[in-house]
């Protein structure tokens, strides 16, 4: 589940003579507008123009300023303008140098050498050196920092800085996924001299990014201005970005129509589809890496037998779930969502609905009474309840009784993290790198293995192998294998990936969306006003 969207639910809290707690649910946004093909970006009539402030709206605010501590999607989508990691993704989700000028993973995948760009300056004036990189990773490793990516980089044995522009990461074990891991904002480079001199990343911002922080008023507005010393010459083109928080996405769409907003990131695909149906608005539609999934808890009695889990998988028509819950806006997905690594669906167990097989499997399991409860969060994702209802109807046809329990988002997260459910409908975050997607759930030592509730020694071995190899083709073979095993063991039923929508005025030019949800390339955008 992406921690991105905001409640469509509005809780009302009134105080009477005692204390009255009432909650009322806002009506679901009507989805009458049919999904039309998204308007394609008009080619620029003239060259890029400099100047102007882009007024951006989104439903949720970031949670804090310290890039190493953030875990929420909304925080990354703000801090990516201010801070830079060493590496990043290009438009094809390929790892490319960012603050690094070049990087090289050794053949044994046990050491990564990074050459830094020269002449990069932090917003407060300090020059970027290899000492800053070393300091950053030491800060992440320090338990006191409570850095989000501490376990991700726990495999770094030592960091060498042969000169001011070169950093060598020495690893305890081979890790072909390290370059992809270095793209996270959780590994954004901080200035050593600034932090050691008393700078507090939780209260101030001092990055190397395209924009500098001007002010942040929580739940209201984040103001950014152009970094004149940005390390890409002539970028950014905008004078600044003003990110406003508008919690209701229907109101965001209203603001776009009224032309009081230039651009918006939309979490709710239904609002995205309505924006796409609107003439006079430009919509960027990108296949998301996040995936909708039905998680079955294999540690619960009802799902201990693999045949029962398989029966559930065989009984579900994934396309029907997609059509019903998200109006067909998306596509059925393999366990790995990055297109390069996705296993062909024809090779995966029961990816085509097979009711007869489901019934046979149940018979082979001794015709048990299969009754369980699925948890779904209200409004997160917006389609969760619809998915659950459709799955409920489909499972009923093979005699499986699924009850639905809807929970407020944080209550849901609490149960989800504790693995306290028979089954859960979830929207889980994807990653361009399959190691980042799979290891944390499916390796028996992964930090979310408790949530996945399934272990397999073979999969452990394959995941370790995938990490140790740096050649993409070889990795692809390994991860295809893992996907086949996962689909067959059916701890989860992977359903579909949706689309991410950004909408804006036709005057916004030069922006390219990334499928991991990043808006980094607003640094290339310009206003044709």
């Amino acid at each position: 589940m992406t921690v991105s969207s905001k409640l469509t639910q509005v809780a009302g809290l009134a105080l009477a003579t005692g204390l009255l707690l009432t909650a009322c649910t806002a009506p679901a946004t009507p989805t009458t507008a049919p999904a039309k093909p998204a308007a394609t970006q008009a080619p620029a009539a003239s060259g890029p123009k400099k100047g102007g402030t882009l007024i951006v709206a989104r439903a949720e605010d970031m949670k804090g300023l310290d890039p190493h501590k953030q875990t929420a999607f909304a925080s990354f989508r703000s801090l990516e303008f201010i801070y830079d990691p060493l590496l990043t993704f290009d438009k094809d989700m390929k790892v490319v140098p960012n603050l690094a000028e070049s990087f090289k993973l050794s053949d044994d995948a046990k050491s990564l050498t990074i050459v830094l760009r020269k002449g990069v300056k932090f917003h407060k004036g300090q020059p970027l050196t290899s000492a800053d990189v070393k300091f950053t990773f030491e800060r992440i490793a320090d338990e006191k920092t409570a850095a989000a990516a501490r376990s991700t980089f726990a495999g770094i044995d030592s960091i060498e800085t042969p000169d001011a522009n070169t950093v060598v990461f020495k690893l305890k074990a081979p890790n072909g996924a390290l370059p992809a891991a270095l793209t996270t904002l959780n590994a954004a480079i901080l200035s050593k001299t600034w932090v050691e001199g008393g700078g507090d990343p939780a209260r101030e911002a001092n990055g190397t990014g395209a924009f500098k922080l001007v002010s942040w008023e929580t739940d209201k507005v984040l103001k950014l201005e152009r970094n004149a010393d940005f390390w890409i010459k002539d970028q950014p083109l905008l004078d600044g970005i003003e990110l406003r928080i508008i919690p209701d996405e229907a109101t965001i769409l209203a603001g776009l129509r009224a032309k009081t907003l230039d651009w918006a990131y939309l979490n709710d695909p239904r609002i995205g589809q309505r924006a796409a149906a609107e003439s006079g608005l430009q919509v960027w539609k990108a296949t998301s890496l996040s995936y909708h999934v039905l998680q079955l808890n294999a540690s619960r009695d009802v799902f201990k037998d693999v045949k029962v889990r398989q029966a559930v998988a065989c009984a579900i028509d994934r396309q029907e779930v997609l059509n019903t819950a998200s109006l067909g806006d998306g596509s059925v997905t393999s366990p790995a969502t990055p297109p390069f690594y996705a296993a062909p669906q024809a090779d995966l167990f029961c990816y085509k609905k097979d009711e007869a097989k489901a019934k046979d499997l149940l018979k082979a399991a001794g015709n048990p009474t299969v009754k369980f409860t699925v948890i779904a969060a209200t409004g997160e994702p917006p389609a969760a309840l619809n998915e659950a209802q459709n799955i409920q109807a489909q499972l009923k046809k093979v005699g499986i009784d699924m009850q639905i329990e809807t929970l407020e988002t944080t209550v849901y997260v609490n149960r989800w993290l504790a693995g306290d459910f028979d089954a859960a409908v979830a929207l889980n975050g994807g990653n361009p790198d399959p190691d980042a997607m799979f290891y944390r759930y499916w390796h028996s030592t992964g930090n979310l293995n408790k949530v996945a509730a399934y272990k397999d020694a073979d999969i452990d071995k394959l995941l370790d192998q995938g990490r140790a190899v740096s050649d993409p083709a070889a990795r692809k073979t390994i991860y295809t294998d893992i996907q086949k095993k996962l689909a067959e063991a059916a701890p989860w039923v992977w359903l579909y990936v949706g689309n991410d929508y950004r909408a804006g005025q036709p005057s916004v030019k030069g922006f390219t969306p990334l499928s991991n949800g990043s808006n980094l390339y607003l640094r290339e955008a310009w206003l044709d006003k």
Partner: protein
Amino acid sequence: MSRFITQRLIVFAPTLFGVAVIVFVVMRLIPGDTITAQIGTQTLLTDAQAASLRAYYGLDKPVLEQFTSWFGAALRGDLGLSVRSGKPVLGEILSRFPLTLELGLLALLIGLVLGLTLGMFTATRRGTLADAAGQFLALIGLALPNFWLGTLIILVLSTVFHILPNSGDYTPFSQDPLRNLGQLIFPAFTLGLGLTASIARTTRSAVLEELRQDYARTARSKGLSERWVTLKHCFRNALLPVITLVGIQAGYLLGGAIVVEEVFALPGLGRLLLNAIGQRDYAVTQGVILFIALNFLLINLLADLAYALVNPRVRNA
């Protein structure tokens, strides 16, 4: 009079303490805490890291200890720090309150002007078509939920008129009064419509009641015009139940503000509270609810005082 006020103020203390206890307990009964809300399901944190974060925020201490340390500080005026923004809760509340207060006052004004007018209008035309129409309007006003009305207003403004007064760029009154009022008028109307309806209905029945009284008949028999009797004699007496109603409803406006601020993207107290609950930001939730409870008590006190002003019997009792 001063004794009356003192008595009322003394009752404040146990009420506020009760509210503090209830909020504190309820917040801890809801599953999921600040850390859960922060890490969400994308987390890379291990359980040990989450535990050390909990220790950092003092969430691992016994609930009673958490309560006494929080309440003790609150008595000294220190409501703690927001987990999210790292800022003092009191400062957050005071920076958001002017907007909610203004919204509430505007809604109250709209409610009083429209409600009293409609109430008098229908009362003096009892049994006519105009009365029926007015009552029907009031019924609609009561029945429309404000989140729906707010969304509808936004939809109509943006699709038909291509305007949206507030697109996340709220301007305080002190900066630009006109722009501020333009941004608040629709939210205030949304919030005030329900109040308008109930004031109109109460006014109508109260005026009708007074018009039937002996003193009204006497006034009429002295040859006074119906208009004079209604406005000069009955209206003032009819105000009493309206004041009681407004006193109660004004408190509910604060609750309604939560919904309206969310729909219209206004950074007021209601949104602060809603986000704090969603994020399990305990200090902010507790602080805001205490603050709202205090306001509620003060509003009720003001209503009682207003009652005394209009009705000498209360004043001299």
